């Protein structure tokens, strides 16, 4: 038996140590907001926070997640109130939406540790794939998120 702490809630599971966290979330715990895209950590659709750091859960063995605080898109905020989610709505970022959980989680983690990233830092850190081509709006969404977060702090 393993215990995972996800979105502030404890879950008892019994799975292979090497099973990637993604599949525990999606198939065993029904937390389907975290998406499967590639299975090799290339696309970022499966991004979650492990102790506040962005991690690609398709390549993150569940054994390594035991004892950490895991946050998924479902636990990012209540009622879409996180500034990144607010910015995403303001800028009307998503199209199909499939990659957006990952884009949002990656952005939230980046801004939590670096509230005022340069354009270069943003582009080096947010490498998530989007096939609908929302990148122009993701970029605007990130900069709007940073603004909203600064306002919140004031």
């Amino acid at each position: 038996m393993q215990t995972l702490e996800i979105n502030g809630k404890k879950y008892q599971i019994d799975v292979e140590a090497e099973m990637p966290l993604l599949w525990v979330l999606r198939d065993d715990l029904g937390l389907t907001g975290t998406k499967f895209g590639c299975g090799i950590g290339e696309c970022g659709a499966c991004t979650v926070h492990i102790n506040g750091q962005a991690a690609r859960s398709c390549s993150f063995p569940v054994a390594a997640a035991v004892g950490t605080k895991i946050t998924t898109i479902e636990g990012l905020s209540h009622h879409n109130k996180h500034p990144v989610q607010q910015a995403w709505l303001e800028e009307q970022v998503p199209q199909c939406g499939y990659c957006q959980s990952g884009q949002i989680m990656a952005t939230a983690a980046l801004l939590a540790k670096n509230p005022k990233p340069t354009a270069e830092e943003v582009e080096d850190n947010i490498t998530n794939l989007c096939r609908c081509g929302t990148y122009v709006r993701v970029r605007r969404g990130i900069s709007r998120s940073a603004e909203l977060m600064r306002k919140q702090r004031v």
Partner: protein
Amino acid sequence: MKKQSFKRRTFIKTSTFAGAGLALGFTFVPLVNSATGGRVSVSGEKGAELGLWIRIAPDGTITLIAPSSEMGQGVNTSLSMILAEELEADWQSIKTETAPVNSDYKNPEQPMQLTGGSTSIKGFWEPLREVGAAAREMLITAAAQKWGVSVGACKAQSGYIIHQKSSRKLGYGELVEAAGKLDVPSDPTLKAPEEYSLVGKPVPRLDLPDKINGTAKFGIDVRLPGMLFATVRQSPVFEGTVLSHDETAAKSIRGVTAVVSIPNGIAVVANNTWRAKKGMEALNPQFQDGLTKGLDCQKVRKQFRKALDNEGKVELDSPKVLDLEYEVPYLAHATLEPMNCTASVTDNFCEVWAPTQNQEMSLDVTKEITGLDEDQIRIHTTLLGGGFGRRIEIDYVTQAVTISKNLGKPVQVTWMREEDMQHDFYRPASMSRFQISLGKNGLPEKWKNQLAAPSILKRYFAPLGWFGFDPTSTEGAKELPYAIPDFDFDFSMVDPGVPVGFWRSVGSSHNAFYIESAIDEASHLAQHNPFEYRRKLLAEKPRYLNVLEKVAQDAKWGRRLQKGHGLGIAIHKSFGSIVGAVIEISSNTSGRLELHNVWISVDCGKVVNPDIVRAQMEGGFIFGLSAAVGEEITLKAGRVEQSNFHDYSVLRMKSTPDISVSIIESGEDIGGVGEPSVPLAAPALANAIFSATGKRCRSLPFNKHGVKFV
């Protein structure tokens, strides 16, 4: 259910349900195919099974039973806006659910019930307005009768009927029962465009709040009690068969419960997708034979060359001639949500949850596999994590239904990315030759274009007796807007055996690259400015000219550029919309190219939601740019070499230029917006590369053919 009088193209019909309110819909004329009697599969939703489109419940809830798959194009929002405009409803309160299979939901622009070809607004704009207007008039009549006042004294506004003099008002929900007993107006009055309060406004999309918190449900998110998880492996050589596999090894993996044969492959079923994947690794299936055995890219190119050589060349009598050869590779769709489908088959009922663009073929294949009648089959369309034409195919539906039928349990089949990459229906590779001669004025006098390409439609129509012609291959090339006195286009159908399908913008995805590169080359040979050159050739085409001039103006075409910078321009019409694009790039000291800015202008006739139009223009262009810069599917020994995003290079944010979009509201016929900006990216970029570096790239993707990007 009453069927009302014939008007325009539709019958409006209505129905009331005890306690369920008013439902209205329409049936296209001809009503249904008389031979088949129309298609209706069941649905649990009241109204949907009757082919009805809107449902107004006694609590005032308005539901649009949306006929199109929502795959990111914002169609549920746009269609809700159209309905709300005529119905005078609070558009934000409109709920949408995707329609079941029923001929009444078929887009008149399509041969069957599917979403594709950028046709949703074009197909549903008029009938949806009529239904909305008819419902509005019925609600007004019901209120007027209740109050004993004239219809003219009442008006509809934001979900209420208001009697202006007495300031009395009733909500739609309070009126539905009475309204449902009325005759449907035979000729409801549609609002004039000047009266629109919603259509034409950049209102926020209805589906986005659920897409930022993980609650939006895609096909891969379907969860049913007792559901099993499967994954598949198909013959890497197309249409090969399973030679051997180790079932014992597979079943020794924890959680693996079954191994099931599927067409050209095999499935492993487990209690978790990852365990199914581990089971597949242990199963280690080996394959044999196949249609493309021994095929590689060189052989495909040889087939194209041979076909073009057979067409032969012409003698051109001019001091300025061009003799050009272009080519493009196969491309994958690589929707970010991998292929998947969930099915639950029992002896007398089957439900399918599919992220599909093609409801009707999903029903057909389910019927064929299960042997059930249509009224025993329910096809649920989930949200799609990208479509781009890949989900017009129904291979994933076939597999889920096959596996579930075999096991008698609900099963979700999910493809690993490797499977998705290697078993696509690819954008066809092709080759195109031009012989162009210029007249004394520098403009093209003779234009001979020969295209060699596989046919997409052949797969669909060959069983019915193939007719040797495929408009999806030739679209965008067989007719040009440019005034060219001697124009000739030939198409040679070549079939290397690689499965090909509809890839966002289809034939235009390659033909625009060919045509707009060739015309650019002609302009340079003539020593004309590429923008002015096109302008001269489009002098008789005012819509094109407006688009071209707008985008040139936005890009400040003709300005002095910084050292190393270049501008490329292109214009193309597809799916009824004309799009122009300019891209600015620069070459740095190490010869790498950076993409800076893109300007797009679009004339799509009428605009329902300008922000959605913008988003589609941006997204389409990026989709095209991604392919132009780095996407390529190659073949070796009959199989696809790429397997995941590490070797199928998709554009990331870092490489994406800024994009600005200008919309030209010409008021002309409605054109599509989901696809028409895709074709512009490759030629605009090729032309910009020439402008910045003097190098002409005639083969895609650019990064595999001598160009490096930042």
